[in-house]
């Protein structure tokens, strides 16, 4: 292997079981970058390349974060300091915007609503979407893929009036269910489609071996395929969660006063006769925190879970 034995050293179990694992590749990261094997030079090449790579990662992260940093800075400013074209770092910090976010409006309620709907819709999308993706990948049910994708293709406006009619007939307008069901239509196709290619890329031999050993079809799915596909599941779930978290149009139309979600509530800072830029930015920062926290936790948990899972497997 191109670079070093780093991955072998850190993850001997991968070698042993030949299971691909998430989060760390089986190949060293620089295998594509280093110029093959030239004894002696390898070590220094490696250090240099790793250094360069790290600089690049940090740079790119900063570039992507700059607008967000501006938003965060603005959330600690008065309106005068936000709309000025002078130095962005010169201002007297204020926490007033955050006091407004939590003081003037019932943000805790909106936060809970958003969490319930995003967790609920993501979870249910997984329950429906993972088996569907598996079926499409393993049993070649291509048409189902197209049907699911259609749900993602239909422009959102199409649904608003018809859903409102149906949901008010069955009396779930303004309830969590209306929101969860509508968000699922966004999350389910996404999860299914991301997972199709993951299930396809998993080696069939492992499953077959398990089946020969007496595992049922369900067993093969739950014990072999699902654990192997975890990196994809995590990514798809996080995205699906974010789609629900940010959904505006469905939430606006289908929510009631007690089920308003954060993206709707954020509009409290824009009114007919004034825009509270500071409050808006503070609300935008507040909105991101739960997602960041959740993502960090999920990633950590999964890494831990997989390390133990891989050795068992």
């Amino acid at each position, binding site marked *: 292997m191109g670079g070093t034995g780093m991955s072998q050293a850190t993850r001997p179990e991968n070698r042993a079981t030949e299971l691909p694992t998430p989060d760390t590749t089986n190949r060293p990261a620089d295998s594509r970058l280093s110029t093959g094997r030239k004894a002696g030079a390898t070590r220094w090449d490696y250090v240099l390349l790793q250094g360069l790579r*790290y600089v690049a990662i940090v740079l790119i992260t900063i570039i*992507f974060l700059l607008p967000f940093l501006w938003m965060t800075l603005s959330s600690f400013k008065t309106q005068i300091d936000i709309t*000025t074209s002078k130095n*962005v770092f010169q201002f007297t910090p204020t926490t007033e915007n955050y006091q407004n976010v939590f003081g003037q409006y019932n943000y805790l309620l909106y936060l809970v609503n958003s969490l319930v709907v995003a967790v609920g819709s993501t979870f249910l999308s997984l329950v429906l979407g993972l088996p569907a993706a598996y079926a499409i990948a393993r049993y070649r049910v291509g048409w189902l893929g197209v*049907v699911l994708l259609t749900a993602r293709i239909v422009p*959102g*406006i199409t649904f608003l009036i018809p859903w409102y009619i149906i949901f008010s007939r069955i009396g779930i307008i303004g309830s969590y269910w209306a929101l969860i069901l509508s968000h699922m239509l966004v999350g389910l196709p996404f999860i299914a489609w991301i997972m199709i290619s993951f299930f396809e890329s998993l080696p069939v031999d492992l499953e077959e071996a398990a089946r020969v050993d007496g595992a049922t079809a369900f067993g*093969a799915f739950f014990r072999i395929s699902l654990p192997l596909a975890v990196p994809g599941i995590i990514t798809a779930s996080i995205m699906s969660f974010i789609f629900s978290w940010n959904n505006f149009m469905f939430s606006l139309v289908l929510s009631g006063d007690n089920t308003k979600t954060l993206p709707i509530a954020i509009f409290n800072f824009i009114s007919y006769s004034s825009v509270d830029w500071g409050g808006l930015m503070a609300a935008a920062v507040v909105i991101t925190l739960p997602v960041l926290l959740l993502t960090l936790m999920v990633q950590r948990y999964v890494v831990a879970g997989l390390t133990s899972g891989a050795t068992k497997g």
Partner: protein
Amino acid sequence: MAVSNPAEYSPKRNTSFVDWLNRHIKLIFILPSLIFVLAMMVFPIGYTVWLSFNEWNGSARQSPQGVGLSNYTNLLTADPRFWDSVLRTFLFSFGAVVAELLLGLGIALLLQGKFFGQNFIKTLILLPMVATPVAIGMAWLLMFEPTIGLLNALLRDIGIAPQPWLGSEQQALWSLVMVDVWQWTPMMALILLAGLTVLPEEPYEAARVDGASPRQRFFYLTLPLLMPTIVVATLLRSIDALKTFDIIYTMTRGGPGYATETINTYGYVQSFEYFKLGQASSLLVIFFAMVLGISLLFIQVRRRWGVQA
């Protein structure tokens, strides 16, 4: 592409319920999602198609009036705004998705493998897509503001003339593309990164033995192996890009003039500003057909690659 069907291994000796489940796993896996999607979609789609042959503004006094195909002919032959918006939609989406794919792939390769603080970086990089499109649109609106905005202040600092950004018909669409790229490249990168982590290892071993160069390994191994994921990621992102609404509507409302009006924002205007529900429905149906066509193309491409993977 001979994929063996695990169901064939199903033992047929038992007739218990669990066994029945195992024999019908395909059906059981397919049905719930199929039923859900159909239940949620059939009525809205049927309703919209029906409405597209009518004229109605939602009145409680006057029910929809049948107008045959006139909503369609009107859009396709007599409405330059529609075709302009179609062109713009594709320009916007193509520009955004290509940039996102290239940048996303680069970032995914960069982030692949262990490094110090990887979870943290992978989380941080999500931020652009987490901060709610509306808030992001408003923030960029202020940053783009030519007189008091951040971007022109930066340009002045490095001695470049201030730009009108969203206030110019020439720059507005590309300014929006910029925001879209900023917002969605992370998603592209993370999907591709997840794809990279599950690539099989054997081909790389073989390539190493053969002494393939890094470039060869990338073009002859990584890229083809990753292609199914790339196609899916591009497909999903393209669908969303074609449907982009929030940031456009928040930042320009389709202006200046009509310079950033896309099919979706035009559809919104038709429904909620002009109250022409029939006309809007026909537009949505055409839009749907277009995106579906493009998606089927992608799926064809993917099938081709799927064979090799």
